[in-house]
């Protein structure tokens, strides 16, 4: 029995505001993610996908629940320990251009995690060039600024940045939503390619609202609705034979 890369137990985030009833954005979700697996997380906007991911990456503190990465409890850690954890877990963001500092070059952004882990300048530059080429960009993109490249190119650079530190888990938070369909297809092809060329070790958590994309890309899918996981299973099964009312509506809306 393999140990799951990511194990989430009863993860909950409750937002409290004065004069308003408490709002559970994420309500006791639990799931496992096995090494090499690609798990899709779908749901409408406001269903808590991004909140869940922000908690998993520890950018947001959970109200309740535990997160285990590679067997270690990462729920309460901070500072240096947390930065060590980020070597195992990386994220690709929804908005490619905004995910790079407008005042730094793409190469700076991609190499940041390497330099933070003690790489020298020249070895970092060489690795950045290799990563860019791996992600389908030429090495001279390292010296460009985010506003000088297109959204698709920027997202490729963002994937290169996420892979720089060789993480075990890659989280794609709506990584293709801001791109048009043809570029979307290219990015999916790139992710697929990286997934198999990464020694079969890259585990992906793929957050998306496009069920068709999840069907062609993921091994397993979780459907989130109003902060809860309402259905899970193989994408084909979920699509052909939805059990939950919301899932049925979701699939009907596409067909």
């Amino acid at each position: 029995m393999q140990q799951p890369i990511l194990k989430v137990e009863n993860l909950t985030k409750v937002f409290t505001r004065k004069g308003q009833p408490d709002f559970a954005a994420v309500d006791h979700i639990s799931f496992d993610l096995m090494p090499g697996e690609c798990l899709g997380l779908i749901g409408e906007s406001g269903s808590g996908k991004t909140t869940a991911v922000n908690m998993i990456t520890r950018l947001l503190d959970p109200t309740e629940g535990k997160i285990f990465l590679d067997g270690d409890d990462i729920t309460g850690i901070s500072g240096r320990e947390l930065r060590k954890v980020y070597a195992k877990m990386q994220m690709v963001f929804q908005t490619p251009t905004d995910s790079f500092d407008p005042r730094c070059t793409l190469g700076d952004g991609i190499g940041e995690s390497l330099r933070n882990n003690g790489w020298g300048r020249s070895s970092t530059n060489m690795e950045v060039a290799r990563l860019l080429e791996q992600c389908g960009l030429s090495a001279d993109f390292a010296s460009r600024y985010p506003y000088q490249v297109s959204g698709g190119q920027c997202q490729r650079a963002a994937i290169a940045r996420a892979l720089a530190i060789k993480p075990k888990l890659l989280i794609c938070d709506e990584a293709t939503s801001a791109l048009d369909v043809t570029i979307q297809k290219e990015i999916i092809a790139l992710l697929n390619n990286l997934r198999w060329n990464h020694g079969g070790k890259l585990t992906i958590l793929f957050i998306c609202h496009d069920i068709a994309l999840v069907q062609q890309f993921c091994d397993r899918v979780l459907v989130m609705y109003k902060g809860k996981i309402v259905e899970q299973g193989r994408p084909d099964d979920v699509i052909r034979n939805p059990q939950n009312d919301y899932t049925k509506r979701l699939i009907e809306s596409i067909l």
Partner: protein
Amino acid sequence: MSEPTVRVQKIKKNTVKTRLIIFGTLALLLLIGSIFSEHLTPYDPYVQDLSNAKAAPSAAHLFGTDRYGRDMLSRVIVGSRASIYSTLLLVAIITVIGTVIGVFCGWHGKWIDTVLMRISDMFLAFPGLVFALAVAGVLGGGLQNAIIALAAISWPKYARIARSQTLSQKETPYLKAAKLSGSGTWKIIFKHILPNIMGPILVTSMLDIGTMMMELAGLSFLGLGAKPPIAEWGSMMSDTRSLITTVPWVTFAPGLAIFVSVMIFNLLGDTIRDYADPRSRGR
């Protein structure tokens, strides 16, 4: 139809650049002039010549002489150093202090943010110059104390700008990406936050140079800044205000100097603000 718009923008951008060059050069001349002010004076600004007191402006004394027969032009030139450099020092101090406090509040948040921001609210709610008068009164006169007094009342503006900018930077995806890259707090602040928030802060401080010069001169005028015989524009005006009906040039000369330099720094600040506007920045 689109051609005229394009032309208008092109012309506008060029004027901003031209204005930047003109006012930048003028401000630079003013700064260089005040560094070497002692070598630029036609007469010794502190030597009295009572036989030639209260002389009207002439070819020998362009701004006339004061009641001790000191050459006004020389005094105005020498006074530029005290006036301009103390202003720049003051603006630098409040920019740094305000930015540090603002970034700290915005980054740290929680109770410390609340406490510091309520303190800055208190400063903002109080009439600034009155408070500066009180501080300068307690500390006693002198240019140094005037700077401390004005710094004490002027930092909250910068703290507020820096805080709100930091808060908005904190929510950007690239800051999250930097955290995920394993960058520590200091690296994130110095590499990502500060470069991205410096623009609006620098523009504010450029615009403040004029205001601060006036306020320093105002404190000096009220006798809480530079002390005679040091030539400083505000105290020079104060010294000579009883003579304004008989020998007006002794008051007008430093007044004109304040007017001109405040105007140059204000226009430079305006121009830098226009230039820093991302819409006018070429890509």
